[in-house]
């Protein structure tokens, strides 16, 4: 132990600090009692006639009823999308298409507080994250792709880009509006029309987005929004008149979709699960690295496909890193998602909470050592204490399976080769982190990691201009950047003689 570490060891732990409640006002959000499906520019009653309650996972209170869209609703939505595609949208001048997207970006900026509050209400994520991450990035995504709409011919040398048609898009519950933006913005910029299904547990910001489209005066049918559970998604995937499917979600469902689409010739992009390694070398700036570890796994309750859920620490610094990490965990504030001081919000659903509990129990059973900071959980709602597993073997389920919760598994390594081997020892390949002050080592490790996004001396950064997507069973295709356009375009060869 160095002198500095010894001093820090004796430092008083600030866990007893009390913060005054600082709740964000929720009256900025006005909810309807019951929502229909958004087809052809209007919220209409679902033909299925079915609705279900959507809740606030931090209180289990119902917020509204939303539609369980059925096969007929899917068919109507696809027809509306096809009609909008054939009769207007694909023929619109690209510069005009761009301006619609710019409008959407601006309206999202203008209404960002409202969206942020609703995102936290319906999804359970801390308001400071929905306010500072989800909303600015969602608006930025539309702004970025807006600019591409009339510049596509510059993006792919020697090719003539052309839209595909109707895109079916199925998004997850961890970043509801942001994932909507990641899907809808490039699809529209490329000249396609959309049938979008938000996640079963987080439909409300997508429905509020329908109001943004109204304000933007987007032509009816260009974007259609169907709420529902997995059955609705399956209907969209199966629908004959959908030309392209974009899915973000679990690897299991992704594989099922790939199987379902076999032989249909439909284009497909998949953004699936992950089990990212966050690698800390002994020369890393430790305090920054510990912040990176915390941001890597506890950001958004660990409901992040690229979460740094496997910590790989070089043996020589194992103890100080773990000590610092445990101290830091004591300062994380868990509770009301709408409180501006909250670091860790509610788990998104009962089902997800049970999955986390089951996997954590397996970790203890298999022999890992569990650490959870002292933390009082609210009585109602779905909550899970930030958790660290040490003494983890690579074969343990908590080191192999995606937990999608605030649970970190710690492994150690001695040499860079061992770090790379352990990091790559997973069927996934979405992301990874590397912490070291040595530049050449960053580049070498980054080169060897089989992952689509590498964060060096940082973690969980996102930007509309930065391509995102996985290797191996984490999926294929990229979202973001120039590369994020390609999944929504056919690239025709130049005509002969040209």
């Amino acid at each position: 132990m160095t002198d500095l570490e010894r001093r820090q060891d004796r430092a008083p732990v600030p866990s007893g600090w009390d913060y005054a409640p600082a709740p964000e006002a929720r009256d900025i959000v006005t909810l309807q009692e019951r929502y229909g499906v958004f087809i052809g520019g209007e919220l209409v009653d679902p033909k299925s006639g079915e609705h279900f309650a959507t809740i606030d996972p931090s209180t289990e209170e119902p917020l509204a009823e939303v539609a369980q869209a059925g096969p007929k609703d899917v068919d109507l939505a696809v027809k509306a999308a096809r009609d909008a595609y054939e009769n207007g949208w694909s023929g619109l001048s690209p510069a005009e298409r761009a301006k619609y997207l710019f409008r959407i970006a601006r309206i999202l900026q203008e209404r960002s507080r409202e969206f942020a509050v609703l995102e936290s209400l319906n999804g359970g994520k801390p308001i400071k994250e929905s306010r500072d991450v989800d909303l600015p990035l969602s608006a930025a995504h539309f702004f970025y792709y807006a600019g591409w709409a009339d510049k596509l011919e510059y993006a792919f040398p020697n090719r003539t880009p052309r839209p595909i048609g109707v895109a079916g898009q199925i998004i997850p519950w961890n970043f509801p509006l942001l994932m909507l933006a990641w899907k809808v913005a490039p699809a529209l910029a490329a000249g396609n029309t959309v049938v979008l299904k938000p996640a079963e547990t987080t439909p409300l910001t997508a429905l509020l987005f329908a109001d943004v489209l109204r304000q933007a005066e987007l032509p009816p049918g260009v974007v259609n929004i169907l709420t529902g559970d997995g059955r609705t998604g399956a209907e969209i995937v199966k629908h004959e008149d959908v030309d392209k499917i974009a899915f973000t979600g679990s690897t299991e469902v992704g594989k099922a979709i790939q199987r379902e689409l076999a032989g249909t010739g439909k284009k497909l992009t998949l953004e699936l699960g992950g089990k990212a390694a966050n690698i800390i070398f002994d020369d890393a700036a430790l305090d920054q690295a510990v912040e990176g570890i915390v941001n890597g796994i506890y950001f958004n309750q660990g409901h992040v496909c690229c979460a740094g859920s496997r910590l790989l620490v070089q043996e020589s610094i194992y103890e100080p890193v773990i000590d610092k990490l445990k101290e830091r965990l004591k300062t994380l504030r868990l509770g009301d998602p709408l409180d501006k001081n909250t670091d860790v919000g509610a788990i998104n659903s009962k089902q997800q909470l049970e999955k986390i509990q089951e996997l954590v129990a397996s970790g203890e059973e298999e022999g890992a050592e569990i650490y959870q900071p002292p933390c009082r959980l609210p009585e109602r709602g779905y909550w899970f204490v930030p958790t660290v597993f040490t003494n983890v073997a690579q074969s343990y389920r908590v080191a192999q399976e995606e937990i999608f919760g605030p649970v970190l598994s710690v492994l150690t390594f001695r040499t860079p080769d061992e770090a790379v081997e352990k990091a790559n020892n997973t069927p996934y390949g979405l992301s990874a982190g590397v912490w070291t002050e040595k530049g050449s080592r960053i580049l070498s490790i980054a080169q060897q990691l089989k992952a689509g996004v590498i964060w060096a001396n940082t973690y969980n950064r996102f930007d509309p201009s930065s391509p995102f997507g996985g290797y191996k069973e984490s999926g294929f295709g990229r979202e973001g950047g120039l590369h994020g356009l390609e999944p929504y375009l056919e690239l025709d060869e130049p005509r002969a003689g040209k």
Partner: protein
Amino acid sequence: MSRLPVRKTYKLFVGGAFPRSESGRTYEAQGQNVARASRKDLRDSVRAARGAVPKWSGMTAYNRGQVLYRIAEMMEARVAELADLSSGRAEVEQAIDRWVWYAGWADKYAQVLGSSNPVAAPYFNFTVPEPTGVVGVLAPESPSLDGVVARLAPVIVGGNAAVVLAPEAEPLASIELAEAIATADVPGGVVNILTGHRSELAPWLAGHMDVNALDIGAADGDAPELERLAAENVKRVVHGRADRQSPYEIANFLELKTVWHPIGV
């Protein structure tokens, strides 16, 4: 006085060597007995390919380009033999020129397909293409030489290793091609070529958990089933065509890696 010619035994090309099928089977094609590869040969090929990826993808792009160019050189020396086994001299010349064309791409596609990304925060952020790993290729039945080259060249120029199922009815040009490849400084295992019955091999290639991508442009009625099998480990499925030649063919078998680093003092 006439001399009895020494005939060639047509064998598989696996891991840089020319083994017979471990099954001991052959089938007759183009008047020759040709090795009829088994599932075991296929698995051996995938293992050889996986083993070759680190070395091949770790070579400099300039070096890979020179190796591809050398394949063209080696084929040029075999034009007569290759012409006999394919549709003729024109096809051979086209195949050779194709290698030269792709050889030149080795140190260029990363600049065309990669990017530097202007993120709205103090980070240096760039995207580079990397090989996806092991690629299974169902070569087109025709043209029997240039079809193989058209689908193989874009796979290996990107640093991948390939397991190729040769055209079933006309496999001889593929094995002649393998002999050119074997003398062109291509590391063993980067290209593996199996002759045999496609229906016996393709499903095992499509379902193999250590194959990352699959080019099934040449599959007929079994394409949907192969695609279903490919989903088991989320393979990248490509429907390649023998008449396609562009850097986008290379891109089909590449992953994009994006790296972030803070900018600061």
